């Protein structure tokens, strides 16, 4: 196509009414514009756009030039000024609904390598277009926000402080821009609310902004590491969201504690819950806008409601979620008096799930710092329960944990509670009366009987023996109820009997293993000597099948030795317990 032809076409367009333009015309117009840009002739395009005679064409077809112009502006620096001037002109001239459609298409077809650049270039124009839109503005805002967020969510959330500062992929800059983008619309809602004139359109705008806020809470804020002392762009974004929610008459207390029925945010419930979990975290842990949050809720109620969110956070296997969950849990417990949470709290499904998730974190999580803070919160939670609730919680944990470490921890806690109950004024049936027996029954038992793997349950057994020793030394308070004491002694005798059997079986087994290992080593040494003598003759030596996996013989030896030491230890504790029993008996007689 030569220049004359092009000029002919342009002339024809100048003379054609908008309704007579064909789809082909739009396509051709776009192609011409793109060609101009690829040849690096942005200046010519700008002149065309600014030419008074072409304003008619632009009004009807100009919006199709946006996509090539924006892509060029993002990619090349050469044409930048021309492109930007052209874009600005188009944004002023074309019909806003046409522009909006074109811009939405640009967002949708974004180049995955230039997400943040494109978005940052688009946002000011999007805002202008939406503010020019006369009708269906709320819907437009909604479409734009969700399209932008969909793209932004593809950007990785920075993890370290350096990454936040470098912001290489531009997530932080995008969030700042999004917050600025949203502002005039929030202001508009606020202004109209003040004047008490709200239309259906305004309500729709509120809903769209609410949706945006909820999505932002989940992505990227739930994954971001936030810190009050380091006001990172993401922290400021979080503040912006938290300030916006009440401004669009969405009180935080309603959102968090009383699930509002009037607005469906068009997200599935688990997503909504994740957003709310992040909201609770920002409010109660980061204390963002806590000053304007009602100060009249009872701490137990706040804990109860937050349990749902803590559960959501702890059930995920991501560090950022777990950290937030633990922080929210600990904050929610902080304001509660020790020994005050009633047993009914444990009947709440979310509380049960939280305790199970926390238990799993303690036993399975590979990150030590999470396990450590998890254990602290585990203890904090126990401290807040009243005696009956503690009793129930211990029973539940002993029955469900199937992990000797957790069990030994619980046994230690039971010992502490018995000690606490013996102090004047603290006596209760749960740890010093009839109810203690079922608990001890769970502690003092070997579920697999004589075949119990003693090494595996060593932690629990040692702690249980310690508990027994303690109870026998401080027998005075417990003896006051003869029935309880009698039953306790029966449980004890049965347990010790079984444990002795178990120890002797295990000892025999490990001794024989140790012996076999020694024999084996002797044999190998001999074979090695023989082989060294005749290494030219035999290359392959048959070695006895290894039983204790791939450990080296030295390590095997150590393991077996330490097992035998453990059995000695257990036995000496049993002997001590029996001595105490004897002593007490002679004293009584």
């Amino acid at each position, binding site marked *: 196509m030569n220049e004359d032809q092009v000029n002919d076409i342009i002339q024809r367009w100048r003379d054609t009414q908008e309704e007579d333009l064909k789809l082909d015309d739009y396509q051709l117009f776009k192609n011409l514009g793109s060609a101009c840009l690829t040849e690096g002739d942005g200046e010519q395009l700008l002149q065309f756009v600014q030419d008074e005679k072409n304003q008619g064409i632009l009004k009807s077809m100009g919006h199709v030039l946006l996509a090539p112009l924006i892509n060029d502006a993002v990619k090349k620096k050469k044409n930048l000024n021309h492109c930007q001037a052209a874009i600005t002109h188009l944004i002023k001239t074309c019909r806003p*609904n*046409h522009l909006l*459609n074109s811009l*939405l298409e640009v967002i949708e077809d974004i180049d995955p390598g230039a997400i943040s650049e494109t978005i940052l270039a688009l946002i000011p124009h999007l805002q202008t277009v939406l503010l020019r839109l006369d009708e*269906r503005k709320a*819907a437009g805002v909604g*479409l734009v926000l969700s399209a932008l967020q969909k793209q932004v969510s593809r950007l990785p959330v920075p993890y370290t402080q350096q990454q936040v500062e470098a912001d290489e992929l531009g997530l932080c800059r995008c969030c700042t821009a999004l917050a600025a983008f949203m502002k005039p619309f929030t202001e508009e809602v606020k202004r109209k609310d003040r004047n008490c004139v709200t239309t259906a359109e305004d309500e729709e705008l509120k809903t769209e902004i609410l949706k945006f806020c909820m999505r932002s809470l989940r992505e990227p804020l739930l994954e971001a590491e936030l810190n009050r002392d380091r006001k990172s762009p993401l922290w400021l974004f979080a503040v912006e969201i938290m300030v916006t929610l*009440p401004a669009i*008459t969405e*009180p935080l*207390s*309603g959102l968090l*504690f*009383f*699930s509002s*029925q009037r607005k469906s945010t068009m997200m*599935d419930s688990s997503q909504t819950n994740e957003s709310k979990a992040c909201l609770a975290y920002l409010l109660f842990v980061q204390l963002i806008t806590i*000053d*304007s949050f*009602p*100060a*009249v*809720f*009872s701490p*137990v*109620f706040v804990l109860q409601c937050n349990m749902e969110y803590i559960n959501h956070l702890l059930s995920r296997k991501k560090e950022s979620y777990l950290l937030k969950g633990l922080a929210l849990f600990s904050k929610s417990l902080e*304001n509660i*008096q020790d020994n005050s949470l*009633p*047993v*009914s*709290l444990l*009947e709440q499904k979310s509380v*049960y799930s939280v305790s*199970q998730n926390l238990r799993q974190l303690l036993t399975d999580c590979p990150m030590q710092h999470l396990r450590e803070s998890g254990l602290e919160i585990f203890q904090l939670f126990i401290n807040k329960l009243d005696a009956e609730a503690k009793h129930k919680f211990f*029973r*539940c944990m002993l*029955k*469900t944990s199937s992990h000797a470490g957790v069990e030994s921890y619980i046994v230690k806690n039971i010992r502490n509670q018995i000690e606490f109950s013996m102090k004047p004024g603290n006596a209760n049936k749960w740890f010093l009366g009839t109810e203690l027996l079922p608990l001890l029954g769970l502690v003092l038992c070997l579920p697999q009987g004589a075949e119990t793997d003693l090494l595996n349950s060593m932690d629990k057994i040692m702690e249980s023996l310690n508990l027994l020793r303690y109870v026998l030394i401080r027998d005075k308070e417990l003896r006051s109820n003869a029935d309880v004491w009698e039953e306790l002694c029966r449980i004890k005798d049965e347990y010790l009997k079984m444990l002795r059997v178990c120890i002797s079986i295990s000892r025999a087994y490990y001794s024989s293993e140790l012996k076999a290992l020694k024999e084996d080593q002797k044999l190998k040494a001999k074979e090695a000597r023989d082989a060294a003598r005749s290494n030219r003759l035999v290359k392959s030596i048959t070695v006895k099948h290894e039983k204790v996996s791939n450990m080296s013989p030295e390590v095997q030896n150590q393991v077996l030795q330490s097992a035998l030491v453990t059995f000695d230890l257990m036995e000496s504790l049993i002997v001590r317990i029996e001595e105490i029993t004897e002593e007490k008996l002679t004293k009584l007689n």
Partner: protein
Amino acid sequence: MTTDQDLSMDGQSARAVFAAKGTDVTPNKDQGVIKVVKRQGLDGDRPMIGDRVMVHYTGRLLTGKKFDCSRDRKEPFSFNVGKGQVLKAWDIGVLSMQRGEVCTFLCKPEYAYGTAGNPNKIPPCSSVVFEMELLKFEGEALTDDGGIIRRIKVKGDGYTNPNDGATVDVHLQGSCGGRLFDCRDVSFIVGEGEDKSIPLGVDRALDKMQRGECCILYLKPKYGFGSEGKPEYKIGPDKDVVYEVALKDFQRAKESWEMDLSEKLDLVGDVKNKGNQYFKAGRYYQAIIQYQRIVSWLEMECGAGVEQQKRIQDCIVTAHLNLALCFLRIKEFSQVIDNCNKVIELDKGNEKALYRRGEARLLRNEFSLAMADFQQVLQVNSSNRAARAQISICQSKIKEHHEQDKKTYANMFQKFAERDAKTRRTKRRRDESERSGMNGEVGIKRRRRSQDCLP
């Protein structure tokens, strides 16, 4: 109605004013919460325990310093009164108020922020003053759809509630349009109230009641006797009913972790039969309760040995399949999909699960997803004719949809148009689901397909 002049004075004189003009509203008369009425209520109507109340309030320290105010937020504050959601002083105070009343409360720390206070706001061991206006109140909605509204006449003791499977002793008085139709003492198992002609709403309210509680329940037809009505009580279709329920006593059922696996496996059969019985009678909500008990018992169990593992898995699969079918009947499609997904997780080629998921997706207008499910059904069992029929339905729906799309694409406003169509669709769906009451379809549509029978 400002109290600024009262509060500009120091703590001493504030106490004196309350001592002279106020009344102690605490139950044990320990001067913990003292009330001074500033404006009488309108009609003598008081909130009941559990009611959703709406108030405006200002909280101040005795120094006059304001620490919290709902008017600053330009939004009244609402909560359920008497349920421990707020400070003790509030639960006591608001229950003493009348609609429209304005008053101030002087609250001791034991009834407010305790020895700890509130960081940055209230110093430890502070007495505080609240000025409060009771704007309005209404019964407590026990379900999201507002179909069960409760108002508590007498608060129960303790904290525990009956759970599903608990045995309860209650006194009931049912009335409809002011006519008493049922008055009796009855004992039943929570979740199985249906067997004793007790409507779903009463059954579902029990796990929120405490021993000794007496409350009034306002039930929409969905939670009452549905579109069938109850000829036995001379109740026509789609009637609201009101029940007064007193929970005299109950025995909680064991919780999942308190039961041994063998105990659970012994009980599963009976519970499943109970569920099937309800399903066959078209009582889907009741059936769901039973099947869900099975899932809650077994979902965390792994069992020892291949045989036991298999048994557990079979029970869980069956329960989820049955749940899917129930939810399909009550048009809770996302629940259908959830339950089918659980089955498919355990058993990838489960014919029924795939088929039911397909049905739910088809009804959610997710045609191509639905088609993929039915095609998978055919892969598992090529002789499933129902699946074949469903595939052709999907195909024609997709075509129909495609043509519609083409038309919209011609439009410059395509994005808006699509959006409109979507909101219209969901709206229509909502209307439909609202129209078909809980028992709306029972007996009318008895589509019995091969996939329809309970395992």
